[in-house]
Every structure is written in structure tokens, then in C-alpha cells.
């Protein structure tokens, strides 16, 4: 097994009580990608995808990143 080398986007919710993630979980030291991007959203686990705020901010941001790949 090797470190993934492809561009990597980590999206997490600061209010996610199901899978809480600290702002500095150091993904960049765990994957081999040159491009590691963290996207912190003020959302819970489900709110990362659904809801008005998700579709105004979160979803466009993550899809902009995917579109650019």
C-alpha cells in the first residue's frame, strides 16, 4: 500500500458531532498528494450536503474544486 498521490480535498463540518474532526488533523502528512486542501464548513454531518446553507456555500465550494481537477 502506498500514499495516494492524487489531489485530495478534505471537507469537514465544524459542528459534526457524528464524525468530529479537528481543524488540524494533518491530512497533508498522511497522503502523498502535492495538493491537499481542507474545506471547513459551519455544518453538521448531514448539513454538509443538505440545507440552504450547504447549497449556497458548501456544495458549490467542493464542486468548484472537483470541476478544477
Amino acid at each position, binding site marked *: *500500500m502506498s*500514499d495516494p498521490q492524487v489531489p485530495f480535498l478534505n*471537507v469537514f463540518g465544524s459542528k459534526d458531532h457524528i*464524525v468530529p474532526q479537528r481543524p488540524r488533523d494533518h491530512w497533508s502528512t498522511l497522503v502523498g498528494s502535492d495538493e491537499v486542501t481542507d474545506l471547513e464548513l459551519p455544518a453538521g454531518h448531514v448539513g454538509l*450536503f443538505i440545507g440552504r446553507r450547504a447549497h449556497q456555500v458548501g456544495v458549490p465550494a467542493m464542486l468548484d474544486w472537483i470541476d478544477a481537477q
Partner: protein
Amino acid sequence: MRRTTAVARALAGESELHLRPRAGNSMVEVLLDRGQDVYLVEWGVPDAADAENSFETYCDDYLPEIVNFVVANSSADDLNMLGYCFGGVLTLLYAAGHDRCAVASLTHVGHTHRHDPDAGAAEGRQDSSFDPALVIDESGNVPGTVIGNAIRSLDPTAEFAITCWRTCGTTTTSPPTTPSRSGATTRFPLPVPRSSRWPRCSLATTGS
């Protein structure tokens, strides 16, 4: 050339509900609107044939087959992969174990590599006294309801609030309207419950 994105959800739970195309509130819909081909990985409901599944089953058997299928059926030579929750774990392990795979980028949503034993869905479940055999059903799998209830137990009042909102909201056939500053009439964006439905909720909340 159209870009392609494959979306992998968690194995259990209802996470697919917010990934499936639904008008106006679906990430998949937005991806389609942006001109991407989208493939949504559906793991299905595990039965006795899945009881012996391991990480290797999903990461070394299923995901390579899925990626090969997607590439063979799309106009692109590679794809972007998005993993949600435990789907993020599986896609990361797949990409790490298959360094020549046709994945152009990895997006992980709501997934962490460092589970805090004192918080989140992992709370209390890393205790050595916890016996996974106790929650396995007759098919040899952990039922999705066990996962769902574990998640609900983290914030039980949240579900009550949502149930209350749905119960009250669905009784409203015509949302009230309010005059805007300009004098025009604006409809509330969400159904507002009739006041007669609220005492029932209030009683439950206060315990009186």
C-alpha cells in the same frame, strides 16, 4: 470531454438520502447541472452472503470493479471520486492500495482518520468490554438500525425536534403569508405549523 464523478456513501445508514437526485437539494443534481456524468455507488442491504466481507472485499474487489465499469461507460479516461463518511475510508484505502487506478482526484466529506474515543460515533465503542458479537443479527451483519440508533443516541433531542417540526409542518396546508416592507405579500420559505399543534410539542418539551 465530460468529466465523471463517482460518489461512494457509507455502508450503513441513510446517507444516500442526501446524495440522491432530488430537485433543489441534491449535490448530485448540481454535479449533473455542471455537465458532469455522475455515478452513485449503491452498496445495497447486506445479507448472509456479505457476513464475511472485509475491507479487502470493498477496497480490492468492489471498488476496482466499480471504477473499471465507470471508465468503460464514460467518455473520460479517469474519474473524480467522492467518498462520504465511511465511504471516504473505503475510497482512501482503495486509492492507497491501487496506485495506478484511474482516479484523478479524491474528495472526502465528513470522514476522519483519527476517531476520538470520547466523541462522535466512536464514543464508548473502543472500550474493550464492547462485544461486537452482541449486535450482529441472524444474517451475520450489524443491522443498519444499530448504527442509526448509535448516532441518534449522540443527540437524542435533535431527532425529537425534527420529528416535531415534521409533524407540525405537514399539518399545514397553506403556509401563512406576511406583508413585506414593500407592501407585497411574501410566502414564508418553509411551512409554518398551525399554532394549535404547538401545545402538544411544548408539553413534551417541558414535561408539564
